[in-house]
């Protein structure tokens, strides 16, 4: 990707910086820790900002494998991964950080949990 289009991407997503700061982390365990501490209004805000643009983000991410993304897409990728994991909490669990009536998620271990997604 040339300089102009990478600058264009950066400015196109300047409004995402608060979301990036809160949600965007490379590994699943880091993202889970954020999600377990999130409130219903934070899930709602994340969802309302991400869902309308999800198609656009997925299109941008459909040209490279995760380990060969241009640097200006790293944040978007981590944000989309976090959204992939957080969306059910808004869509299905009424904003609860836990899956209702479930086992303690902190007792689940993800074998891949510390690897970058």
């Amino acid at each position, binding site marked *: 990707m040339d300089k102009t289009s990478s600058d264009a991407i950066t400015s196109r997503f300047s409004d995402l910086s608060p979301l990036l700061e809160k949600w965007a982390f490379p590994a*699943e365990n880091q993202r889970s820790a954020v999600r377990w501490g999130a409130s219903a209004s934070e899930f709602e805000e994340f*969802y309302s900002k991400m*869902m309308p643009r*999800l*198609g656009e983000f*997925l*299109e941008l*991410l*459909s*040209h*490279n*494998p*995760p380990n060969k*993304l241009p640097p200006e*897409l790293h944040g978007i*990728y981590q944000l*989309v*991964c976090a*959204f*992939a*994991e957080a*969306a*059910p909490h808004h*869509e*299905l*669990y009424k904003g609860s950080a836990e*899956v*209702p*009536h*479930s*086992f303690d*998620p902190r*007792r*689940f*271990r*993800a*074998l*891949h949990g510390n690897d970058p*997604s």
Partner: protein
Amino acid sequence: MITNDTGDSISEQKSASPRISSTQELRDRFGVAPVSTESICNPAIYDLEKEKIFRKTWLKVATTWEIPEIGDCKVKDLPVLDTSLVITRGRDGKIRAFHNVCTHRGNKIIPETDTETYVRARANVLTCRFHGWVFSTDGTLKSVPAQDHFGELDTACARLREVACDVWQDFVFINMEPEPSQTLADYLDGLSVVFGGYPYAESTQAYRYSTVLDCNWKVALYAFSEGYHVPTIHAGSLPGFRGADHAEFKVMSPHASSTIFAGGMDTTPATSAFAAVLHGSAAHRPRPDQLPKAINPTGRPDFQFELPTIFPNLIIHLGAGCGYPGLSFFTHQFWPMAHGKTLWEGTNYFRPPATAAEKAAQIHVSALHRNAWLEDTATMEDTFKGLMSGAITEMQLMDQEFLIRHISQNIDKYINA
């Protein structure tokens, strides 16, 4: 000799059609009476299970693609076998299994960092850290520091202690019997009719979860072996799983299989968007054409996945992307650690993602599925406590809970053999 439910020996029932034609046949052949909770609750039966089931049957311990290169090793800690095993890929490409025990004085050859540990044997050798004995990945003792200071040492006899190991459909199994009474191929003969031929090894992208549950291993196994709980336990995470139906039972004792049918999962906007990424890709789209012929032979469009019980402790749910978007198959394994303690491992297998978008979509599907597993595992410790209270001594089983009845009958057969 172990016999199946109709009294035939297992070897005689090879190639017989495993299909059960009706619920009535299921009831007639296997009974309808409540099933005793004795084998779950009695610690003495757990000791018998260790000796007569886990030390005698073939157990899945790895997949070939977990150790793809020469020198790759996986260590699996197996309290139910009172040992830890090293599974290696030798210089000849062959996969072997050994006790993770140094033949000098018994130290672990590979120190474990977890319930499973992966290492690459550099120069194809494994060195014990205690005194430096060096073994080849085929088990040969290659060198011994200060060897001339041993008054007697037969290096040929000091090979790593090998365990029977064989591969079925790219799943690696071991058997602790010095001379297994059945080959792996014979043990899984009936199962191959239903599960053989799917390209399992293409789906190397794994998302694995595990947890240690304070329950008997069969409580966990049974909870994952029936579709009766889906509309209730999974009302939160799988609201789109409409009209769940658990049917098409097949019996190839000691194993059995069945099919889960249900309406689609693409119910929410986020799931629809992620599913579209996978469904739009040649590698990840539903592949009913790749399902073995015995699975969903009538091509029902609401097919989700095949649900077998592979005796004693393995489930391979084969969906070929038809159910959960992009998900080729998923496995559950239940490793007893003690009478009332179980390591559960659940793994989602996808084909490797070609793009970051595909990876994110797999992460979404895997998270939805993990959430359903959190709903499943929530019942297990309570169920075990309830049964251990002695308040009930029998389980009432409906038709969709047939696999539980079948496993329970096979457990009784093995421990009474």
